C-alpha cells in the first residue's frame, strides 16, 4: 500500500513539468548562481584584488620604491593618480597625484574601500624596525574592514621588498613586535566612527530590500487568486479596466512595502540603535522608490505566472538570485568588478546602494539621484512589462 502511494507520487511528478523544474532545475540554477557570485573555481581570487588609493606625500626615492612594490603586489590594485572610470569620483584631475583629501573622499563616497597615505618623512620609517619616524595612514571604509587589514598586511610585505631592493635591511636584535614591523601604520575609519553598530545599517537595508521583493511577489499573486475565484473577471466587467486594476494592485503593494521597510527600520532604531531619525528624508525617498520598484517587479512575476506554484518558483529563484547578486547577502564591494557591474542589472543593487548612501556614507539627498533615477526607470520598465503580460486577461 505504501509502495502504491510512492509510485503514484512519482507518476504525478513525472506529469507535472512545473514541479519537475522546481524540484530539479531550480536547485541547480541556485547552486550555479551562488557558486559564481561567491567565487567558485578560484576565479574571484584573480579578479577581487583590493583596490587602494595610494597618496605619496613624501615623494622620495624610498617612498616611490614602496609604491612600486605595492603596485607589483598581485593582491592589490593601486591607484595613484586618476581614479578608475567610476561615476562621481571627486578626486584629482587625470594624471595628477592624488591628495590625501581626494583619497579620503573616494573612500567616503564608496568608490574605494581603502586609501593609504605615506606622509612626509616616511622614508625614515620604511624598514627601520625601530619604530622611528612617522606612520603610514590607512583610511578605510568600515563597511569593508577586511580591505583595510589586507592593505595593512600587504604594506609590510611591500616595505620589506622595497627595503631589500634598496639594500636597506638591517634587522635589530630585539625590541617590541610593533617596533619590529618594517613599516608601522595606523588605521582610521573614515565613516561610522561614532556608531555603536555600524553594520546594522547595511543589514537592515539588505534584508529589507530582499523581503519586500518577496512580499511584493506575494501581493501580486492576489491577481492569480482573483483569476481563480472569478473576481478578476467581475472587476474587469465593471468600469475599471486593466490599467486601473494594475495601478490599484501596484499602489497597494507599494504602500505595503513602505510600511514593511518602515517597521523594520523602526525596529532597527529601537533595538539596534540604527540612526533612523537622523536620516529621515533620505530614508523616506529611498523607501518610496524602492517599494515602488519592488511592487512593479512583483506584478511582473504575478502576470508571468499561471499558478501560485509557478509564482513561488519564480519568486524564489529570482528574488534570492538578485539579492545574492545585488549585495543583500554578501556585500557587492567584496565581489569582482565584473560581478559588481553585472549586479547593476538588478534594481535591488541600486536600492541597496541608495540606502547605504543614506545611512552609511551620510551622503546629501542630491547624491541619491542616480539610484532614484535607476529605480524610476526599473519601475517604468516593470509596469510596462506587467501591462503587456496582463493582456492575457483582457478580452479574448
Amino acid at each position: 500500500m505504501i509502495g502504491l502511494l510512492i509510485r503514484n507520487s512519482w507518476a504525478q511528478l513525472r506529469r507535472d513539468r512545473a514541479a519537475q523544474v522546481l524540484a530539479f532545475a531550480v536547485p541547480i540554477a541556485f547552486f550555479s548562481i551562488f557558486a559564481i557570485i561567491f567565487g567558485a573555481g578560484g576565479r574571484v581570487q584573480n579578479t577581487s584584488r583590493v583596490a587602494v588609493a595610494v597618496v605619496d606625500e613624501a615623494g622620495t626615492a624610498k617612498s616611490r620604491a614602496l609604491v612600486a612594490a605595492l603596485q607589483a603586489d598581485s593582491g592589490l590594485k593601486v591607484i595613484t593618480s586618476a581614479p578608475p572610470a567610476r561615476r562621481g569620483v571627486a578626486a584629482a584631475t587625470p594624471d595628477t597625484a592624488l591628495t590625501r583629501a581626494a583619497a579620503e573622499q573616494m573612500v567616503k563616497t564608496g568608490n574605494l574601500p581603502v586609501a593609504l597615505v605615506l606622509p612626509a618623512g616616511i622614508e625614515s620609517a620604511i624598514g627601520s624596525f625601530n619604530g622611528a619616524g612617522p606612520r603610514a595612514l590607512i583610511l578605510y571604509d568600515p563597511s569593508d574592514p577586511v580591505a583595510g587589514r589586507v592593505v595593512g598586511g600587504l604594506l609590510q610585505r611591500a616595505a620589506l621588498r622595497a627595503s631589500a631592493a634598496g639594500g636597506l635591511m638591517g634587522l635589530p636584535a630585539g625590541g617590541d613586535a610593533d617596533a619590529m614591523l618594517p613599516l608601522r601604520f595606523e588605521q582610521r575609519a573614515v565613516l561610522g566612527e561614532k556608531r555603536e553598530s555600524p553594520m546594522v545599517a547595511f543589514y537592515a537595508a539588505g534584508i529589507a530590500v530582499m523581503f519586500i521583493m518577496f512580499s511584493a511577489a506575494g501581493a501580486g499573486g492576489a491577481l492569480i487568486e482573483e483569476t481563480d475565484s472569478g473576481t478578476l473577471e467581475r472587476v474587469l466587467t465593471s468600469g475599471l479596466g486593466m490599467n486601473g486594476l494594475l495601478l490599484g494592485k501596484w499602489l497597494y503593494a507599494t504602500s505595503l512595502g513602505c510600511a514593511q521597510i518602515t517597521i523594520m527600520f523602526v525596529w532597527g532604531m529601537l533595538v539596534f540603535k540604527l540612526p533612523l531619525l537622523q536620516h529621515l528624508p533620505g530614508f523616506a525617498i529611498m523607501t518610496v522608490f524602492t517599494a515602488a520598484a519592488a511592487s512593479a517587479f512583483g506584478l511582473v512575476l504575478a502576470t508571468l505566472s499561471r499558478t501560485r506554484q509557478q509564482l513561488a518558483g519564480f519568486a524564489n529563484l529570482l528574488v534570492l538570485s538578485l539579492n545574492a547578486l545585488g549585495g543583500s547577502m554578501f556585500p557587492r564591494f567584496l565581489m569582482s568588478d565584473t560581478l559588481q557591474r553585472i549586479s547593476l542589472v538588478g534594481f535591488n543593487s541600486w536600492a541597496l546602494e541608495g540606502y547605504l548612501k543614506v545611512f552609511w556614507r551620510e551622503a546629501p539627498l542630491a547624491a541619491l539621484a542616480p539610484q532614484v533615477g535607476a529605480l524610476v526607470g526599473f519601475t517604468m520598465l516593470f509596469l510596462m512589462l506587467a501591462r503587456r503580460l496582463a493582456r492575457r486577461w483582457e478580452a479574448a
Partner: protein
Amino acid sequence: MAVLEIRDARKSFGANRALDGLSLALREGELLGLLGPNGAGKTTLIRAISGRVKLDGGSVSLYGRVVEIGHARTDLGVVPQENALYPLLTARENLETFGKLNGLDGKRLRERTAWALEWTGLADRAKSEVRSFSGGMKRRLNLACGVLHEPKLVLLDEPTVGVDPQSREAIYDMLAALRTAGTSLLLTTHYLEEAEARCERIVIIDRGRAIAAGTLPELVTHAGLAGRRVRLSLDRPAASAPAGFALAEEGNALTATITDVAHELPGLLSRLQGAGLGVRDLEVRTASLQSVFLELTGKELRE
C-alpha cells in the same frame, strides 16, 4: 423593442468554434433561458455580451446600440458562474466594492447596500467574512453584487449550480422580484426543469448556434412533438402494431400521439380490444423540454 440583440455572433478559439453564427433577442422584462449542453457556447456568449470576449464576427446590441469592447456597461449586470467574491471581506464590504466598481457611491451606495443585505437575507451577517458563509449564502450574495447598481439587463451564468433545492428556490424568488421591478434577465442553465418552469422563453443552443427559440409549446411544435404522447403497456407482446400505433419495448408496449384526449383516447382503446390486445397500464404525457432537447440536439443534457 429588444433589450438585447445578438446577430450572427461568431467566435473561435483555435479550431474550436465556440459561437458559430448565433443570433437571439431578449425582450424588455423577459426571463430568457439559454439552454445547452456543456461546451455549447453559453459562457462565451455571456462573456461576449459583457465585453470580455471580442467577437470574430456579428454584433451585440443593447437597447438598439451596438456595443464595443472595453466600454463600461453600467446598464448591464453580470452574475458569474463562480462565486466571484472576496472571501476575507465581509458581505457589506463585498457589496460596497462591487457597487463602487459599477458606479455607485455616497448615499446611493449605502441605500443599495442596505437593500441588498435585506434582499439576500444576510442583514444579520453583514459584518461576517464571506469565507464563513454557506454555499447558498455565497450564491445569494454573488447575485446581489451583480444587480446592486440596478442594471436594466442582468446576465446570469448558471446562478443555481451547486446549491441545495431550498437555496435554489430562494434565488428564483430573488429573480422574480427583479422581474417585477422591470429587469430583463438572460439566464444560462443546464437544469431542464428550471428552464421549463421558470423561463418565459427558451433558446436552445448547441455547437455555438441557436437551434430553436420560443416558449415550451412553440419548442415542442418546432421539434415535431406536438400533441400528447400515449403509452400503453400490454398484457402480452404484440406481433404487429394496430393502425395508429407504433410498437415499443419489443412489442410489450404501444405508443401513439393524439391531440384531444377526451375524444381520441376511447377510440384508441376500442381498436386495441378489436385487435385482441389487453392493456395493463396507460400513460398520457405532454412532450417535455427533455424530449424536445433530445430531439433537437440528439443529446441528453448532463449536469
